[in-house]
């Protein structure tokens, strides 16, 4: 009996060791013949290539490690925007899918069936190479919403210029901490004395008032810089000032959002449908108002069904953001696994670092969502 248990394990282990051993030996041999030394020292070398879009200070004289950081931040940026937008869109479409209005229901399901059956890469190409290329040149762009320009070179919007931003930021964090403790206090009061506070309104007030106070007493100041047309050459124009969002980022965000939102919409629909009708009726029969039914009975149960698959979609979105490399948005894959690898030729180290980074991001998101999921799960006794 014991032998039967040990043998398969031993064979598996042997198989893994042989495969890994074979690969490492070959890699060692190949690197020896090519005269490359395995190591991460190259990260400190000068990168000497430029990156078009960067959230932090960067130029060619910085190190590869800095280039890696730029790529990572760009990936995180597009993932973050994508996650926020696709959640909003997904919830709206998912609810619309259950609307009693025939037209709305059908429009929502048309949207879902349409966008989820077309490869994401094709959608990214479509937005970038076909749709956004049809936009006007900077000099012909019409004014949008009084201050922005949508051009072939990207979207130009007013940029906020902060004075003493750190004070404002600290105030925001303080406000969030106060809201957290207030909600805890309110919950305790309700459980002990049955007293209810208008939690949402008070939280909102705290969130607005405390940061707003810093404008008066903290010396925080906010002004706007507007994009202005500037002539570069006889027929070449660009905008100066303001915030320029490159078309790559727009195309990528659009495609990721529209694609992932279809999956989230289906999750939301399944979640709401998964709450039994009896739950709603029982809640109504004990005298809860419709908004209370939604808030206290339906949503907590629906969320339990919605969250696990939605986490997967967030992870997918983050991983799919690596398709950015196809349209030259400087994300981690393009900057690091593309340009940096071409220059250094260190395939093993760079692919390993890139994969490890994505693994870490994935593990972080799933750990966070697991924690959240556990918090809202049914407390069975």
């Amino acid at each position: 009996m014991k032998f039967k248990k040990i043998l398969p394990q031993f064979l598996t282990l042997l198989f893994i060791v042989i495969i890994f051993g074979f690969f490492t030996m070959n890699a060692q041999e190949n690197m020896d013949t090519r005269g490359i030394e395995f190591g991460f020292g190259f990260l400190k070398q000068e990168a000497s290539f430029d990156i078009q879009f960067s959230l932090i200070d960067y130029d060619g004289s910085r190190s590869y490690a800095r280039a890696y950081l730029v790529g990572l931040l760009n990936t995180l940026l597009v993932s973050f925007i994508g996650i926020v937008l696709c959640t909003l869109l997904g919830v709206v479409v998912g609810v619309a899918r259950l609307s009693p209005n025939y037209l709305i229901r059908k429009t929502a399901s048309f949207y879902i069936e349409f966008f989820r059956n077309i490869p994401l890469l094709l959608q990214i190409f479509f937005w970038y190479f076909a749709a956004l290329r049809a936009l006007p040149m900077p000099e012909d762009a019409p004014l949008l919403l009084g201050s922005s320009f949508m051009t072939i070179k990207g979207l130009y919007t007013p940029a906020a210029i902060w004075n003493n931003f750190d004070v404002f930021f600290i105030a925001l964090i303080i406000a969030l901490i106060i809201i957290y403790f207030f909600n805890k206090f309110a919950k305790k009061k309700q459980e002990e004395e049955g007293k209810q506070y208008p939690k949402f309104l008070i939280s909102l007030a705290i969130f607005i008032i405390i940061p707003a106070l810093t404008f008066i007493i903290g010396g925080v100041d906010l002004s706007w810089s507007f994009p202005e047309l500037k002539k570069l050459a006889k027929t070449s124009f660009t905008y100066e000032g303001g915030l320029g969002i490159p078309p790559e980022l727009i195309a990528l965000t659009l495609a990721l959002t529209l694609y992932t939102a279809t999956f989230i919409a289906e999750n939301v629909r399944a979640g709401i449908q998964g709450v039994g009708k009896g739950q709603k009726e029982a809640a109504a029969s004990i005298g809860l108002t419709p908004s209370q039914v939604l808030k206290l009975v339906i949503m907590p149960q629906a969320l339990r069904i919605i969250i696990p698959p939605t986490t997967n979609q967030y992870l997918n979105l983050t991983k799919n953001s690596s398709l950015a490399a196809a349209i030259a948005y400087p994300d981690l894959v393009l900057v690091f696994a593309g340009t940096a690898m071409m220059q250094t030729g260190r395939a093993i180290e760079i692919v390993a670092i890139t994969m490890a980074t994505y693994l870490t991001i994935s593990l972080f998101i799933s750990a966070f969502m697991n924690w959240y999921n556990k918090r809202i799960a049914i407390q069975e006794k």
Partner: protein
Amino acid sequence: MSNLNFIKPNKKNINLFLVLGISFFTLGILDFCFNNFYETNITGFLPGFINFFTPLIFAMIGLYLIRIEYSGIKLLDEINKNINTNNFNAALSVSIILLIIFSVAPLLNWFILDANFVGESKEACTGGGACWVYIKVWFNRFIYGMYPNAEQWRVNATFIIVLALMGLGYFFPLKFKKYLTFYYVILLPIISFLLIYYLISGGEFGLEWVETGAWGGLSLTFIVSFFSLIFCFPIGMMLALGRRSELGVIKYSSLSFIEFWRGVPLITVLFMSAVMFPMFLPDGTYVDKLIRVIVAITLFEAAYTAEVIRGGLQALPRGQYDAAKSLGMGYWRLHLLVILPQALKLVIPGIANTFLALIKDTPLIFVVGLLELVGMLNLAKTNPKWLGFSMEGYVFAGIIFWIICYSMSKYSQKLELKYKTDR
């Protein structure tokens, strides 16, 4: 609102309200059409912002007037119940109708009315619409890639034979039904591989050799997804069983294998197969790019398949395991005869989704230089003779992928219903 009762639509004057309502609604739609397509504004005398909303207002008044409960007219009752229950719903309905009119008309123009179908060169495209000539001229390239024109019958023949072989399982007599799994999991992949090797690749039996670099277009999409589909299923099944195994080494090696592949994007996996993998092989060995890509996609999707199958395994009640064990079944008999048939039935939708994801992921192989449909489009787009038709190409590819994926998902829904058994 009670003092407005005299204009509340009622059944007594139903004809009057119907006529009024329909004419208001039509007026709204007409106003909208004139505004957008003929650039004449029939309500131009009103101030700007009201002017903008007139179609909506007119159509909503129209819908308000025909909102009569129990009118006795079947069609009217249906309309009221489905799109016109209250003012809010009416506003949403009208907005959607206007949006559809707004988007469908230009699309129709672009797709058919202003489009060019005949001709051989770019000069034939004069209209403002789509240039389908582009697709026509490049069609062979989009389907077969750089495969030589004279040899394309080989690709067609292979696909027809493989499809026929796949359909063959359907006609198996009852006696051979138990070999069906063997046929699909082991025999069919081998036969298809040999077919593709000898017929598409060639080099023997007097057939001209065509290197894999020349393969491309939609046929490459099919080849890659076909093999990945066939191989990822058994591997995924083994991984799923491994992950639930009681033996520590097997459990944790399966677990880390699955979590690794699920945690990284496919594009980095393909990068790995392209630049990192050759470093891991003995000097001088060369594995064809296409095979490397198929292996990479297979391993990647196998991890996802494993998680889906594990979901099915977990959903089975413990009693099934206990009952099978009490009959004296060993591990393999228990799983092959009792657990897997039930579990796989449960996960049909999940498996179908994984397969769909796989098909939608195949365009990514462009990163290693293989040009399937989307890759070919990008190549054609940069041809100096045919600049400026990227839109047509992407729309064409989009339609093809949409048809494939949509029909697959509908088929999986049918399968799900067919194999649904009450427990």
